[in-house]
């Protein structure tokens, strides 16, 4: 464990969730690393779709923004912004979407809009961008986030991107085509979501982490899976492939 940083660990664990042949909507930074890592390891046929409309990119460098020219040169196709959201996301063509955010609650609802009240914000955050659209339309939402008490909250200040709302019943009423939250990957553990209640549940602890540590950093009483597992530690192959993706450590701090 000492040899990988918390970010590296999260990226490696997230990459393992991607299956060969899946399509993934990729943002820049950490999700881009996770997708590219999976593609180099177990998922060579992963289809990467970028929010900017680039599909099947073949980037010559670590993309600096979601619309980096390296995502276009040598890509399979490019479409307009409305088309990307309409044909790909709303079209139900995307299996996996990665989301982050300032706050997340136990049903996987995410806030990336505002801390405080919407009308008189304490901190105004960037807002949804495509996050709400992704949350509503992909089959599996994977959240990558540092495990901090200010991020894990009882109730999000603003619901930017729907998770299971107040549990699976509330969510079913929305009739979204997406599958809802699938996993939350932190520097301490992996959560998945209870099939019946939609509540975030610890399914695996990373190496050297105790359930008490997870509880300490989570404001609600955490639910733990009966068959709690230990996250297999990062393999040399994973670490090397990941570091080759971001040699200048732009995102792997």
């Amino acid at each position: 464990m000492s040899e990988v940083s918390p970010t590296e660990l999260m990226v490696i664990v997230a990459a393992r969730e991607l299956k060969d042949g899946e399509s993934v909507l990729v943002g820049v930074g950490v999700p881009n690393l996770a997708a590219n890592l999976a593609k180099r390891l177990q998922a060579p046929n992963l289809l990467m779709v970028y929010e900017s409309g680039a599909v099947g990119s073949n980037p010559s460098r670590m993309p600096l923004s979601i619309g980096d020219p390296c995502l276009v040169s040598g890509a399979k196709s490019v479409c307009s912004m409305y088309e990307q959201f309409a044909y790909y996301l709303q079209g139900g063509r995307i299996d996996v979407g990665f989301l982050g955010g300032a706050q997340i609650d136990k049903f996987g609802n995410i806030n990336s809009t505002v801390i405080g009240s919407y009308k008189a914000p304490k901190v105004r955050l960037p807002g949804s961008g495509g996050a709400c659209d992704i949350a509503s339309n992909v089959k599996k939402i994977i959240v990558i986030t540092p495990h901090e008490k200010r991020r894990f909250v009882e109730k999000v200040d603003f619901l930017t991107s729907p998770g299971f709302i107040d549990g699976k019943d509330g969510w079913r009423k929305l009739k979204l085509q997406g599958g809802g939250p699938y996993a939350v990957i932190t520097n301490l553990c992996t959560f998945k979501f209870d099939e019946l209640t939609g509540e975030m549940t610890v399914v695996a602890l990373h190496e050297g982490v105790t359930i008490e540590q997870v509880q300490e950093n989570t404001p609600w009483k955490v639910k733990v899976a009966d068959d709690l597992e230990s996250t297999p530690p990062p393999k040399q192959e994973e670490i090397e492939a990941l570091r080759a993706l971001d040699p200048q450590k732009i995102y792997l701090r």
Partner: protein
Amino acid sequence: MDSSKLMTMKEAVSKFVADGDTVYLAGFTHMIPFAAGHEIIRQGRKDLTLARATPDIIYDQMVAAGCAKRLIFSYAGNPGVGSLRCFRRAHEKGVPKPLEVEEYTHFGLSGRLFAGATNMPFLPMRTNLGSGLPAENDLIKTIKDPYTGDEVSVVPPLKPDVAVVHVQRADANGNSHIWGIIGEQKDAAFAAKKVIISAEEIVDESVIRSDPNRTLVPDFLAHSVVHEPWCAHPSYVQGYYDRDNEFYMEWDKITKEHDSTMEYIQEWVLGVEDRAQYMKKYPKSKLDALLPKPAFSAPVNFGSV
């Protein structure tokens, strides 16, 4: 060929951007018309409603300079860097003046523009339900799907008063070839009442007509055509220059205070005449580093019957 459309950015902004207008400077990360934004600041336009999915640095500058009274947007961040500090100062603290916000998701905002471009009465979409956004924005409504009875979110068309669309190459009438990330350029041009086309290169009509499938904006939409190389710096133009990422990171420091921001605007916007002077002032070595190696498209045969 109606060459009277060819004019400088100064003339175009003076003729086609008025106080109080809803303005759309198009481009999703790509080909953001910074030169137009700077000229709007120089001409002291005010009470503008600024619409863009991603306000980016350009609207941060216009907000700091006091041009804006309202922002229509979906992601107000400095892409890949963090916050837009001027936007936050205006919205959170009213500095230099208060800023109203009208907020959507990316799909919602690009959908509004698409609906505006195609004059749809309204656009149904699979998003917004469950989110807190509709409660804060009356223009996002929910109606019943006449086929399933389910609730469906809808947004109305957005029709800006004026759009500025930067392109790689246009002819003197404004027929424009665009490639790379094509964002909302086409929709902005079709949705707006007035359109300023700005181009890296003005080419002969025959170049455009050799590949009509590449023309995203046809000439009859263009009210003015501006030849403005490097218009998009510090954003980028596919095949012409890369993003000046260093500046995107520096902007985070420049904007720590309103005063330091205004010093920048004084020197780099108000202190220069036009984009040509801005580029002359910019360190040449930095610009040279942004030039890509060539990589040409395989040509296609349209045939002549």
